[in-house]
């Protein structure tokens, strides 16, 4: 078996062995899904139409943005990356393999949500399954890259929580998951374009469910793809092997470049 496969197998198992990761990858999104299924659909039956994509995006963001960065930062703080460097583990593998395995866990949760929502909570199944799968993969890639970038620029574990919440909380409030973008206040609506969840939700709505949207869908797709690629590239570029050795190729503020596609998309809706 190759080094990549050993590394992938270990990281995938870690997503189940580590109680915090098990919670954030599976128990938290599935528990929230069940709660939303029982409560939200009773309060607001219209939620059934967007329940599947909203909960799929929630599962992806929870696993990648909330769950993934912490263990990477802790590993760096514990000197594990130093050991990896000495033994020839490349920076690309250190970041990309947890990104892949986290994405994989998120996709399993997404599949559970997609298959059970129509059965138990009357959630609407996607009309265009191919587009649904494609958008799910694109969202997982973009959010995993964002999680990688957060882990790279966070100075310590406490900063990681701050950065993750800075993405997660607005995504929940104005990212189109809990309420459609067109019901947001006028003053807030432009800022929703700064969040990957808004673009992902719009893509699901338009291309997977053939429903009307407020964003330009090709622009949203391009925004997600470009920001994912930028975040991934910046993660590799800004990667630091250890906490004590602060010399790196660029300043952490360069990470803001990953937001550039979102800023541009604000003017192209």
């Amino acid at each position, binding site marked *: *078996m*190759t*080094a990549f*496969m*050993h*590394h992938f197998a*270990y990281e995938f*198992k*870690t997503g189940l*062995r*580590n109680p915090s990761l098990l919670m954030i990858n599976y128990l938290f999104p599935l528990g929230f899904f069940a709660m939303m299924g029982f409560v939200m659909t009773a309060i607001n039956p219209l939620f059934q139409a967007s329940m599947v994509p909203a909960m799929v995006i929630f599962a992806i963001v929870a696993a990648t943005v909330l769950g993934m960065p912490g263990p990477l930062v802790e*590993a760096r703080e*514990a*000197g*594990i990356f*130093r*050991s990896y*460097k*000495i*033994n*020839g*583990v490349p920076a690309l593998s250190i970041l990309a393999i947890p990104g892949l395995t986290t994405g994989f866990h998120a996709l399993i949760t997404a599949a559970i949500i997609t298959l059970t929502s129509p059965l138990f909570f009357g959630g609407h199944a996607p009309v265009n399954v191919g587009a649904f799968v494609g958008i799910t993969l694109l969202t997982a890639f973009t959010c995993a890259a964002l999680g990688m970038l957060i882990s790279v620029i966070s100075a310590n574990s406490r900063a990681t929580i701050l950065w993750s919440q800075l993405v997660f909380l607005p995504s929940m409030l104005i990212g189109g998951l809990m309420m459609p973008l067109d019901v947001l206040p006028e003053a807030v609506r432009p800022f929703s374009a700064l969040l990957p969840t808004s673009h992902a939700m719009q893509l699901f709505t338009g291309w997977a469910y053939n429903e009307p949207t407020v964003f330009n869908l090709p622009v949203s797709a391009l925004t997600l793809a470009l920001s994912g690629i930028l975040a991934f590239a910046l993660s590799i570029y800004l990667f630091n*092997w*250890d906490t004590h*050795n602060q*010399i790196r190729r660029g300043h952490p503020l360069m990470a803001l470049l990953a937001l550039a596609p979102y800023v541009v998309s604000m003017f192209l809706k």
Partner: protein
Amino acid sequence: MEDKVLLVKDFRKVYGDFVAVDGVSFEVQRGEIFGLLGPNGAGKTSTLECLEGLRQPDGGTLDILGVNPAREPHRLRNLIGVQLQSSGLPATMTAREAMRFFCAYHGVAPRDDLLERLGLQGKQDAQYQGLSTGQQRRLSLALAVAHKPPVIILDEPTAGLDVGSRAELHTLMQELRGEGLTIILATHDMAEAEKMTDRVAILLKGKIVATGSPTELTATGAGFTKVSVRTERAVLMDNHTAFPAVSQRIIREEYVIYWSTDPGPTVAAILAHLSAQDDKLIDLRVERPSLEERFLELTTG
């Protein structure tokens, strides 16, 4: 004929205005256990990190078997095995997974035999966080030598270990040396350095203040030999006779200890005095200063 494995020449490492290592030079021969000693902040870790390719030196030459650690990390990684002082392994990784993981990145077959040889039989599927400190250190050592590197670097390998685990690790190090490996050992434990190393370099404030075998180093100190005497009637306890070549006299428990620059005449005079006083010798010890004493002499002045 010299068989040089590692060369450090005029090595310098600077952090901002702070000079951590200032023109350090030493060589290590094949099959040697070379000790790097020094108090905290002496420059040991900076030296090791540059040798391991973790940091860039700011001056001088570092060479491990013809490889520059800073410029050729891909060649370096198969030449050295490193046991870091900190864990270096994820908490949930099992011993078997760690062996497969690191061997795969070195492009060699996993060495499960090493896990057994290092006393980890039955622990192969235990997670790193579930191993005792001694088992963790042994696993780290197994991983460091699994790809059969000619040089291994051990950073405080026995720190925090109990006496039994420490002795086990020392035996393993001797076995590895017997197999032709060269070992760089950074330690605070002077007894360990004295017992295990062929040669040591003592670092202080970024400079080497002494280098040589532990025997050579202790012989080049202030030149005092410790003469400890215990007698039946303890007549020496209250006796302040100036024995020849004695510079200092202390009493520790039932022993009277003399620091002598020439132990022969000192011992002869003590024995003559005991005979004259009709006292009977129970114990007489003549000891050179330990490496620890020499280290303290060098580092505290």
